[in-house]
């Protein structure tokens, strides 16, 4: 159960970030040329690999309880951000994340930016692609490393992220358009729920508490976070209607 949960969490979180990175690379490639954008993508991938290679082994040296405490706390702070935004979107308090609108905004910005050549590259296209992939990729790296190291299996978490990468890359090459049909808001909701669940579980364990039934209580925490989130969406929807 925990292994499946780990792979599914890493897959969902990574897929959401890869869809966002794809939108930026597409916007850059279509407007500024593919060469600079793809070199930006490759450079960001190398930088990410270096970060993961440096941090991955270092994380395994930290005692598991300290790791769970720190990672649990950070993951909880991170997960609650996602969950709060997802709940606000689902209840209509915040605009839905729209890849088509982001793509239009990015392409409009890229079309009007001045052309500056550096090292034979269109610098705007390179940096747009590099920054987009690096920032979205850092979130994936953070999730894979923290999930994997705390559960004692970085390869399993990396498997989830790898499947997401291949899937998004293949679909991206096939459609060559932002993946607007991906249920991104639903996926973000699910990721927020999972990050909050893992964060709650590990933070308590790291603080020295013992869950009844150990790992078997993880699905119970998950059910609690889901119920809490749906209750919040329902309450906020009613509140919005009352003020409408």
């Amino acid at each position: 159960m925990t292994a499946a949960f780990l792979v599914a969490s890493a897959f969902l979180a990574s897929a959401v970030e890869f869809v966002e990175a794809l939108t930026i690379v597409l916007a850059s490639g279509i407007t500024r040329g593919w060469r600079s954008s793809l070199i930006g993508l490759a450079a960001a991938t190398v930088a990410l690999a270096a970060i993961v290679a440096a941090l991955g082994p270092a994380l395994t040296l930290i005692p598991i309880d300290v790791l769970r405490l720190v990672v649990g706390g950070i993951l909880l702070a991170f997960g609650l951000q996602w969950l709060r935004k997802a709940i606000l979107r689902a209840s209509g308090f915040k605009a839905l994340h729209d890849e088509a609108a982001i793509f239009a905004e990015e392409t409009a910005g890229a079309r009007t930016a001045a052309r500056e050549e550096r090292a034979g590259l269109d610098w705007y296209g390179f940096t747009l692609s590099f920054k987009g992939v690096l920032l979205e990729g850092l979130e994936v790296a953070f999730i894979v490393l923290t999930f994997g190291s705390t559960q004692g299996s970085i390869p399993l978490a990396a498997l989830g992220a790898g499947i997401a990468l291949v899937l998004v890359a293949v679909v991206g090459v096939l459609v060559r358009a932002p993946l607007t049909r991906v249920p991104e808001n639903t996926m973000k909701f699910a990721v927020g729920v999972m990050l909050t669940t893992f964060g709650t579980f590990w933070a308590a364990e790291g603080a020295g508490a013992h869950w009844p039934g150990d790992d078997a209580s993880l699905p119970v925490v998950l059910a609690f976070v889901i119920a809490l989130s749906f209750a919040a969406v329902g309450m906020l929807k009613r509140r919005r209607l009352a003020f409408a």
Partner: protein
Amino acid sequence: MRRLRAFGHFWWDFVVGDDWRAAAGIVLAIGLTAALVAAGLDAWWLMPAAVAAILALSLRREASR
């Protein structure tokens, strides 16, 4: 110096985000759990309760803007 500040800002934004009170609440809840465990009480229930409270307060603040 500017790069160092930008680096710090990136991580702050990445982990804490736009609601520092929620992050502070998490730190407080973890500290309280550790203190109760040290006092001999297995306070596994405190984190879920704290998450519910932190999320509710954070959503209320955001919805009243």
